[in-house]
């Protein structure tokens, strides 16, 4: 686990939401031979900005060089490195798993144990979902594999910094406005 913490770092990158910005980020990683482990992107809290959560492999390239090169992109406004111990992370998994009527009950039980959801049931397969910590999803995926995974899609992780105690209280007192 500690090796994974050392190898993969989470960058939360705030960018201007403009055409081609994702291509710029992806192109930079390709051009500089940096490795992306996962990437998730969607509009951020302010109009005109998006937040990209990138999990980068820092085994081959120092993180510092990755962030500096990223920051040279004109549309990149802010980069935060999220320490997994000081951030909240989530990921969503969808999977279609083989489950004939005999096995269906076992699969459903497994989903319930993980507090996942059954999204669709077919004659010999079910589609399930789970959101949670990436490590939890890894465990879930490994257990589903025993039944035979037909198709699987994970979103890649998204993350935000953990609020410290004071910020948590502030957030509760001003529920309408964060920060």
């Amino acid at each position: 686990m500690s090796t994974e913490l050392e190898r993969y770092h989470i960058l939360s990158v705030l960018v201007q939401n403009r055409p081609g910005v994702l291509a710029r980020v992806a192109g930079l990683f390709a051009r500089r031979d940096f490795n992306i482990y996962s990437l998730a992107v969607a509009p951020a809290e302010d109009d005109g900005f998006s937040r990209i959560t990138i999990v980068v492999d820092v085994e081959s390239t120092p993180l510092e060089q990755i962030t500096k090169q990223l920051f040279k992109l004109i549309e990149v406004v802010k980069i935060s490195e999220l320490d997994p111990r000081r951030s909240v992370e989530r990921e969503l998994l969808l999977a279609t798993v083989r489950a004939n009527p005999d096995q269906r009950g076992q699969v459903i039980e497994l989903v319930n144990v993980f507090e996942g959801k059954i999204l669709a049931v077919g004659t010999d397969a079910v589609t399930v979902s789970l959101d949670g910590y990436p490590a939890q999803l890894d465990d879930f995926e490994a257990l589903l594999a025993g039944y035979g995974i037909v198709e699987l899609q994970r979103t890649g992780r998204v993350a935000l910094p953990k609020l410290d105690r004071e910020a948590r209280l502030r957030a509760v007192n001003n529920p309408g406005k964060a920060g």
Partner: protein
Amino acid sequence: MKLTGAQALIKSLELEGTEVIFGLPGGCILPAYDPLLDSPIRHILVRHEQGAGHMAEGYAHVTGRPGVAMVTSGPAATNMVTPLMDAYMDSIPMVCITGQVSTGAIGTDAFQECDTVGITRSCTKHNELVMRPEDLPLAIRQAFHIATTGRPGPTLVDVPKDVLQNSMEWHWPTDQEVADSLPGYRPNMKGHGRMIKEAAKLILAAERPVLYVGGGILKARAAEALRELAELTGIHVVTTLMARGAFPDDHPLCLGMPGMHGNAAATTAMQRSDLLIALGARFDDRITGKVAGFAPQAKVIHVDIDPAEQGKVRRPDVPIVGDCRLVVEELIRVIRSMRSAGTEQADTGAWRSTISGWRELFPVAYEPSQPGEALKPQFCMEQLRDHAPEGTILVSGVGQHQMWASQYWNFTEPYSWVNSGGLGTMGFSVPAAIGAKVGRPDRTVWAVDGDGCFQMTAQELVTASVERIPVKVAILNNSYLGMVRQWQEMFYDERYSEVYLSPELPDFVKWAEAMGCVGIRVDSPEEVQPAIDKANAVDDRPVVVDFRVDAREKVFPMVPAGCSNDELILPHFQNKEQLA
């Protein structure tokens, strides 16, 4: 005020201070060429779009102002890729306008359509496709702002034909609006105070310091500050290929060019130093040789406006992100105040005398030809240097002639040297010289070229003749791709593969004359000076001098690729043991 997008584009370029555009019209950019007729901006009609790009670069090199190129869509845009990449590698401010198919046709594989912003994304500092005419002025302002601030570089604005044709309400964005539109772009100009103090301490404590000066000093207009720092501290200066002229070659502290073909004193001084003060330099592989073996005992102070250069190749002990001029000026102030507070500079006497010894023993040198022997290219360079009018700007292509130009010229002022350093673009010199002459019409501009390079972009001499831009071109013609030949001789057992051009074809004199130039051929040493004098006397048209030189000459010293700088190879008549 209602304007068409085309009118707004030209007006925006005027307001940005554009005095000349290098370009070539075509279908999609056509609407922009109409208001250009009524504009005070001079347009120079090139024969190939690549020429327009290199001209814009040459212009920017010598003036410090952004060069502007304008071409149409598709093949014109792809022809611009090489100059854009060249400008990106050498941090040259340049703005390129490309036409694009109409907005409705984008993505349909229309005639002369290509994904220009996609193709040029990794060879520009920034690029933009403008989809509405009202967005044009801001896009142009952003392009100039980004090209000229921070680490300079090329920008590109891609404009669909209907965006040029449709009308808009004119609005010229304020500086504040430009800044607000670029929330992620805030170059750091002023160095960190504590880091500058740390640097000053290291400088005063170093016994074997070297100022390692790169092109960033020129971009920051910091040559004067550099000279003050060098003289204040008595530290020797090496000027990289991109920084030739940033510190005068005839200054007692100047060591000249280090690196793969640098002189032995400059390369070895860096290698044995205990402190490298890198100013606007990027630890290029042509400077460092094998990185693991580079300057093993040196601490490093690295001043660069681009934070990503810090630690990219060599981890600095003191990183300083900022504009070279501001940082060097501050460094001078801090060193002065530390000295007046009683801090003494370490004794560098032994180091300085070691360096003097190397300089005396290892000048850049060649064996002059004996009577009846073939003409030596180095001799041509020396003659060109000795007979060039005061203030001549030297431009070069890429290869052996480029190295000889850098080695044998005597650079005495900044912005008098134009070359393609990072990308190594053969064919750079003729168009870049034309751009330089347009930017500095008061100066003599000599291009030094190889016969291989010349054949890549020579057609732009037609442009020069027609536009009355009297540049001079010296071809060091050895009928070979000389640098490749040198590597094949030294590292591939003299197996010459596809490097022999032709001693007979083309006839450079006839070709020059066909393009409206004066053409002169030189075969023997006695003819060299008269030909140069004749060329210098021509001021109403371009001149091409075809120097037929000895193909066996190689560039020395040389550090073979991938080797440590300790492994440099000297010419056979110099004794490396004396470097110890």
